[in-house]
């Protein structure tokens, strides 16, 4: 299969994921459409650099994120387009062997409440952008820690840390809905089991 046909086959297969990630990065539908198109153009131009032994999705996600960083450099006027890197808080880099000392929140309360999948999806949309990105890449796109680390250009330990924080905050939203941003102050419960 030639590279053009391959690209035409792969993009529709991942279109929902690509659009969704563009929305995560830009937070505005109009900007997401532009980012998606620009990313596809750049990906096609760089298709010869794609290693066929690896997965297409993390490769093109990495391109999309880099395109977004370039776009933000070009135009920094929208509050929603603050540079990705500026939003990333200083985080301790933890190792794979000793990822975290804290204890994850158990999802027992959420299971008992029998929440809908849609409400869980909505709660993910309310996570702070830096945490939402990692939770989406792992829990919705199913990417490995290492793929995510490559996409966001951060160590695996940082990915694990953000994933931990994002998942725990998500569970807090689901157990205590009033704690979502804009509704009240966020308070992360940390009562272990």
């Amino acid at each position, binding site marked *: 299969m030639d590279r*053009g*046909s391959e*690209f*035409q086959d792969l*993009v*529709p297969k991942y*279109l*929902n*994921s*690509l*659009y*969704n*990630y563009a*929305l995560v990065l830009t937070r505005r*539908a109009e900007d997401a*459409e*532009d980012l*998606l*198109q*620009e990313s*596809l*153009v750049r990906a*096609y131009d760089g298709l010869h650099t794609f290693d066929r032994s690896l997965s297409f999705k993390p490769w093109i996600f990495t391109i999309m994120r880099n395109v977004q960083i370039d776009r933000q450099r070009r135009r920094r006027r929208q509050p929603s387009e603050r540079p990705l890197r500026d939003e990333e808080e200083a985080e301790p880099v933890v190792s*794979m*062997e*000793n*990822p*975290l*000392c*804290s*204890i*994850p929140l*158990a*999802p*027992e309360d*959420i*299971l008992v409440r*029998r*929440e*809908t*999948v*849609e409400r*869980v*999806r909505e709660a*993910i949309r309310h996570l702070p952008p830096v945490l939402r990105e990692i939770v*989406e890449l*792992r*829990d*919705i*796109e199913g990417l*490995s*820690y290492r793929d995510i680390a490559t996409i966001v250009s951060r160590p695996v330990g940082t990915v*694990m840390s953000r*994933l*931990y924080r994002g*998942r725990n905050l998500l569970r807090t939203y689901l157990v205590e809905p009033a704690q979502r941003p804009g509704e009240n102050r966020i308070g992360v419960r940390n009562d*272990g*089991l």
Partner: protein
Amino acid sequence: MMDCDTAKSKLFPYVDGELATELRDQVEAHLARCGACRRLVDFEVAFRETYVDRLRPDPAPERVREQVATLLPDLVHGQRAGRTQRWLKRLALGVGAALLVAIGLSAGVALQSHLGTRTTLAELTDAAVEQHQKLVRDLLPPDIKDVSPKAAEEWFRKRLAFNVSLPDLKTEGLRLLGGRISHLREVEVAALEYQVDGNNVSLFIIPEEAYRQLRLKDKPRFKVVSHRGYDVVIWRSQGAGYTLVSEIGDRACLVCHAPHEKLEPLPRPSAHL
């Protein structure tokens, strides 16, 4: 020997399958002798199965699909005179029709491969009854609940490749409990849970192409089957197939028809599977 705090700190990467072999073995050795931590893992796994595994990316709107379907052939055939977004948008508008055809074709191909071998009426009936039982027993949580039929239609429209049209009746005793995207014999369907006078009724809406694969005769219009004590009614309407499962015979038709409507009588069950 791993202690509880250390094991709990590795819960997420353990369930994610991201721990190195040696560390994973240490966690599993701890779980083998610690009921509390094992319970924590069980809840985490149940949470993933109930919610996380069913999460999907937000679907790309039709407009975006059209734009991309226009862009791709242009990229591949090297007709990029300029790459500004404005140009791309203009081009997208021009060839939108071609895109619609492409989407239709690819959807058809996808559906065909999805269906795989042909599903029979007996298999569809069995799958529908099984899903109904799971819905009634709360073994399958709804994706949406306590929403109006219009809101449910809108929700399904964004997620399914076929038209989902729901009745919007104000009949006393009729209630739409919720809905979810389910699978009948690997075919993606809209599953709706209703109550009619306190009785559970499930309505499954399947793609017309999948309905055609059943190769049912046009008459009688409604196919009625008794299976494992349930009444199953199957028919086609407005570009989709419908399967209604209940234990209340033709009273389940109140899901789609007002009580005063004069309905053609349902045929006697044509099969007892």
